[in-house]
């Protein structure tokens, strides 16, 4: 494997070079929290961070996206398709879990015979430079759900912080084009590659066995009427924290908003945890209580996703775990389903 290297003190130059050609989104500090924001200058980037509170899915799938605009002023409504995002962006410094989430979202927005142009135009125009995780967070479990702290899935370039320098690994052709600008410091030497391997081994060891999901889709299939669901949801507030912060949750609503003369049709984030999500105009709701909604959430991410795509729809970023207002811990739920049942031989 060839990898480039850049001394860390040159990071600002590296970013400045990027900024000349591209819009760059990177972790930045806003009101003492790290979030993904447009980089105005290289100094704003925060690269020694654990992860941003909100996932970067909003960069491809914004919370509010205009699908079309309409004008009702004339005799007949005039409907205009909203312009597709044309500007390229480089998403710099996201974690491998978040980069991998883009691959999972691709399947939803571009996988089933329909092509979501809004998402796809952003996706095509986005280059991902991910930052590996030598020190996974306490609530992270990417390795348990098919990812890993040094995974390159979904990224075009993978950076590793080796202390004095960054290792730069090119993953795709798109990434190669970008990394050309950083080649002046040459290739990484054996020592750096060894260090990188050590860091990866250490991170993977730290993540080993955190969550058990072996056979989860099978367990879940047999659990539809299990009493487990009765208790699971009791403390859940039914808010949207887990779904909105989750990098792979993609449920949305389509609404028209505007005056009686003009307006826009919007695609907005929505959540299967909200009570009215599946409520029909007749008042009938197939998921009337938190019990059905929690079951749906778990089934969707850990059973139906496996049916449809061969793997679970979770990247193990841990945001739902850390931010749930009532500490309803998904990791424990998954472990309870898998390990307990494995032990009981059911």
């Amino acid at each position: 494997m060839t990898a480039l290297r850049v001394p860390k003190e040159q990071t600002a130059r590296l970013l400045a070079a990027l900024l000349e050609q591209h819009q760059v989104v990177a972790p930045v500090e806003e009101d003492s929290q790290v979030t993904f924001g447009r980089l105005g200058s290289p100094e704003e980037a925060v690269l020694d961070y654990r992860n941003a509170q909100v996932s970067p899915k909003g960069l491809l799938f914004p919370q509010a996206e205009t699908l079309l605009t309409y004008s009702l002023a004339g005799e007949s409504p005039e409907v205009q398709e909203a312009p597709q995002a044309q500007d390229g962006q480089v998403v710099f410094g996201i974690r491998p879990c978040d980069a991998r989430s883009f691959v999972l979202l691709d399947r939803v927005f571009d996988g089933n015979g329909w092509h979501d142009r809004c998402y796809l135009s952003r996706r095509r125009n986005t280059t991902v430079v991910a930052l590996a995780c030598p020190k996974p967070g306490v609530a992270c479990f990417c390795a348990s759900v098919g990812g890993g702290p040094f995974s390159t899935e979904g990224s075009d370039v993978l950076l590793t912080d080796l202390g004095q320098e960054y290792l730069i690994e090119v993953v795709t052709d798109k990434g190669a084009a970008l990394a050309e600008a950083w080649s002046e410091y040459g290739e990484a030497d054996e020592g750096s590659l060894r260090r990188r391997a050590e860091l990866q081994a250490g991170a993977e060891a730290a993540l080993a066995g955190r969550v058990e999901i072996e056979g989860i889709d099978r367990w879940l299939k047999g659990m539809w009427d299990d009493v487990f669901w009765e208790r699971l949801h009791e403390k859940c507030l039914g808010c949207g924290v887990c779904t909105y912060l989750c990098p792979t949750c993609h449920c949305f609503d389509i609404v028209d908003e505007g005056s009686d003369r003009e307006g826009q049709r919007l695609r907005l984030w929505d959540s299967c945890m909200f009570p009215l999500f599946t409520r029909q105009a007749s008042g009938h709701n197939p998921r009337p209580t938190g019990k059905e909604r929690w079951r749906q959430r778990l089934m969707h991410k850990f059973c139906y996703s496996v049916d449809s795509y061969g793997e679970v729809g979770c990247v193990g970023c841990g945001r739902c775990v850390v931010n749930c207002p009532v500490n309803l811990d998904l990791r424990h739920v998954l472990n309870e389903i898998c390990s307990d049942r494995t032990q009981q031989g059911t």
Partner: protein
Amino acid sequence: MTDVSQAIRDTARSLLADGVVDIVIGFEAGTLPLRSSPCFVRDAADTDRLVWNMSCENNLARYLPWIEGKVGIVAKGCDARSIVGHLKEGRLERERVHVIGVPCQGILDRRSIEHRLGGKEILEAQERETELLVRGEGFEVALSKEEHLHASCRACRSRNPVIYDTLVGDPVAEGEGADEYVDVREFEAKPPADRWAYFLAESSRCIRCYACRNACPLCYCRICFTDVTQPQWLGRTANPADTLLFHIVRALHVAGRCVDCGACDRACPLGVDVRKLTRKMEKDVEELFHYKAGMSPDEPLPLATYSLDDPGDFIQ
């Protein structure tokens, strides 16, 4: 000094064993440092799960309107006032609730602690008498609990539950200080442009996840005004104007009822200052009506009580 956790367990056990209640809502240990989690205990043998500490940050009264049967509930000072609120608003019958009142020293503000540690991850936290020992990778530090109390606890004047069937733990000294609303007065004194900029900045951060609303014991409407479509009261995007409207209307809806438990603020994943408007409402209600929410089941609700000979000369 009473071991409050043990006292809660013992109380819960006997309540369940004697059939006084069918369920006890309390707290159990969390899965991360500085967390605890609401728990629902139905079996007397299961009561060892129950704990009490300064991470018991949820207001458990938010579960009460939705639970049937006879309920035991662990209530700190503010939670107890919320329960009084539920009684006055007809959400509950007094006979079916057994309040396990817990005099409260205050709840820790996780965000303040994280900020103090510069964002370093906490691996372990231990409560001592006045200190919190926090350990992480490459650091171990003793923090003053007092310095990291949640803002609502620092302003709290009702640490001892005003209503209870069983009191566990020793009564604590009530919060003191000349002005309970010093935070509101400081903000009120700012020029309008500064205040407006602050509100816009806060609402720009809000993602309309409704954690604040759903954590609140008072927000028990089956369909919230945010979800009504006929008419559509406010836009559903996270546009700051619509978001600010959500927070304003919610503050108005809880005015005269909010006890400033702070559960809304602690529930927010993004640190939006959700209490800013509700604190103002609280202060205004106290100054205009000499009323504090939830202190007594006998006091009439100031914004929901009327008599036919109320003055109406302001109606032109």
